[in-house]
């Protein structure tokens, strides 16, 4: 499992990246994250939705309501231009950190 701090800091870039591929709603985002992390990241609803609210407030995403064929009401999110710019910046920072760690960890000495 991943520490709370790491989950917290990775939420924004992950959401923005997922939305880069298209419109999505909360539940689907949670499933996607679970899938691509191989089960390591299991986001709960009480974590995700407030974050989405915050991001919308910050102008990184916009939401709209859609009624599905079955009559289900869902809130869909889209990334904005602002959000895209933010993602670029996030990626830059993450790559910096990643680069530093990669350098430190090569060659991988046997730890385990």
């Amino acid at each position, binding site marked *: 499992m991943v520490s709370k701090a790491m989950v917290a800091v990775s939420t924004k870039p992950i959401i923005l990246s997922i939305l880069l591929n298209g419109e999505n709603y909360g539940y689907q985002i949670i499933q996607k994250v679970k899938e691509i992390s191989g089960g390591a990241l299991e986001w709960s609803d*009480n974590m995700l*939705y407030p974050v989405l609210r*915050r991001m919308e407030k910050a102008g990184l995403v916009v939401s709209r309501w859609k009624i599905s064929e079955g009559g289900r*009401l869902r*809130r869909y999110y889209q990334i904005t231009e602002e959000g895209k710019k933010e993602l670029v910046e996030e990626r830059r920072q993450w790559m910096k950190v990643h680069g530093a760690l990669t350098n430190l960890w090569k060659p991988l000495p046997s730890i385990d």
Partner: protein
Amino acid sequence: MFDLEKDIRNWKKSLSRSQNIEDSDIAELESHLRDEIDQLTEQGFDMETAFNEATKRSASLENLNKEYEKLRTSSNRNLFWHPSKFLPPLVWNYIKISLRKIKVQKGFSIINISGLAVGLSACILILLWVQDELSYDTFHKNKNQIYRIITEDQSGNTIFTQAGSPAPLGQAMLDSIPEVLSSVRVQSGWSGWYLHLKDQNYMTEHLAAVDPDFFKIFNFPFIKGDPETALKNKYSIVLTEKLAHKIFGDEDPMGKTLTLNDDDMTITGIIKNLPDNSHLHFSYAFPAEHMRQWRESKLDSWTYTQFATYVFLRRDADINQINKKMMSLVSQHIPPQLKGKFLLYLQPLQKIHLHSTEINTWMLAYPNKGNITYIYIFSLTALCILLLACVNFMNLSTAQYSTRAREVGMRKVVGARKADIIRQFLGESFILTFMSLLIAVLVAELFLPVFNTLTGKNISLIHSGSWTIFLGLAVLGIVSSLAAGSYPAFFLSAFHPAQVIKKRGGSGKSRGGVMRKVFVVLQFTFTIGLIILTTIIYKQLHYMSSKPLGYKTDNIIMFAGYNQYETDYFGTKADLLQNPNILAVCRGFPPPAGTWGTTNVNWEGKDPNLEVKVAEGRCSPDYLKVFGMELTEGRFFSWDFSGDDQNWVLNETAVSAMGIKDPVGKWFSLNGRKGTIIGILKDFHGESLHNPIAPIAMHMSEGFHIIIKFRSNSIKTLLPYLEEKWGKYVSSTVPFRYEFIDERIETWYRTEKRIGQIFQYFTYLTLFIAALGLFGLAAFMAEQRTKEIGIRKVLGARISSILFLMTKYFAKWVLAANIIAWPIAYILARKWLSGFAYRIDLGWDIFVLSAAAALLIAVLTVSYQSFRAATANPVKSLRYE
């Protein structure tokens, strides 16, 4: 049986209790829950387990609350005075949500609150005034058992109703009618009596000449002395604490002596200062017996009606019976020729202040006689103003539907029932109303001094500390918020989620448009009506003050002709005329120069069946020199004709009423005084234009007042001169008191002037509220039509044509309001004007001008919004989609 929907509803309900989770969040979380349940059921779980599992996985309420709370910047929740600590969370929630909604709709809210606050403050002031008027004489403990005897004198050709009654009647009733427990005769309110202590005189104080039981019947609390016995002794006198302090300072006045007209009176009681809401108005009281010698009051005569009689009846007394018995007593004692001409009846104490407009109450002089009609009018006005403000509120609230519709739809999706939404909107209007009420109270308090001056009262609001007032305010707030908030609440809560979420923005016909138009028309009808009425009032006032009266009124001063002015008229007059600034001096009564009329008149060739009431006037020959009336026939009195003191001068109305041809030279007698008619005066307005000119017969006599015509602009030096002469000819201790004729005439229309001013304020008020409402509506309409206007502009329409389009829309309704307002205003104006014998004509110009004024204001109000809409960038407004 497991009910998924029910459980979900309950789950949502528990979420909605949280303060930080909004309805849209709940909808999102529900959506998530359902997706979770779907997945679980797909995996094979049954509904119930799926639900339980899903909710377990979903966060606990506290976590959710905390997470969402982080979103809100609520740094001040820890302050100890923060309301959330005192109020139950649900109430505080409502308040917070309402305040947030209000903040979001800042523009509308401000307009709403201002309109409501202004309306409420006017309402408050009016209701305070009404309350004060209704409170007159309520401080007497026996108020339901006290009655005043009213006499209707039908002996002349008009009915003369007065508050005086035969002097011995009270005692006779006491003797023969068991239900009558006590009776008193009263004269009060006027001053001028020679009350003094050593060399200080108090002639300006108001007296009350009363029978000894006065303080037993009426409740004027005694600070010192005993109300039962205070006036038992003929030479006793009772003072108010204000007068006692004025005369004696801090010394104890009890037992001390004051001189009243040469008699020594002992002070036997001090009463508290009279409250303002008393029709009896005096600062000292003494036994009426003294009037026998001081004014030759015939206190034993059944035809002497210069005192008012009040009776104190048993609780179970039958008023009709007593009226009948009273009438029969009077019939027994009055001279036979007057039998059947006098009608007496009892007037309850509580009705005296407001229902005595037709009754002559000269013997109970008090300045602020009320009128029940005004109570009705002003109460109705208060109601109308409140209605107007509420209508405004309704209009503006329903106009916001486009912005609130989504929110309503959302809440319904989340599971809120119509009742909940209605409750929320009512709550919002409640809060808005109470905010307006607070502002209204402050505004009313601010206006109180002006209001008190305008109405001649002493009303207090916040300082009154009266529970009834605060309760009344609370009731006002609740009633207004219900009245104003109900319709919008029902209107807004009727939205269906589907129609709200699918549609995007929208143009064209707005919902509830019909009601809104009705409201605008209503508001402007009221406003236009007021403009018309106010204009008419002012026109009539102007007419009355500028209509020639038939004699001069400027630069004339009069004062009482006491002492040497009386005993040596010629000498004092000659002395006065030495002063070059004094142009003429005469003696008598100011116009109309007469007291009420009598039918005891006779003349040469009189038809015995004809009854005419003629007023008797007294003057001296120089009267015409002072006042400048015109003669149409014959001559006026003159010192050169020694027999002139027996002769008569009549006015034109008298001649036509009597039907005499060639009156000059014929004989005439009034009240037994016979003489020759020597001249006829052209009719003049001796009384206000309320009344038609009455028949007057004037004769020479040692009339009461000295009346002087002086040179213009000389009054500054003249007053001290006259004062000096007064000191020389009358008294050096009694102060010199005088009156200017033109000021006297001003007072005729004092009531009307006041009414005019009040109507003026009302007009401004309603205009403000109506304009405010229109402003908000125009804003709304502009917003609604942004797309339409954008398209028009793109298609090449000019700004002016768009402006025209928008103003035309509203102008239609303002004009419609005119159609309703005109006839109503016309009828009311006619009714009011019928109270004047001389009045203006109701011309078309008044109505048309008022309509134009209202239209102008409406156009100006709307034009601002129209202009903004017309000049908005079409690109922006069309970019929506």
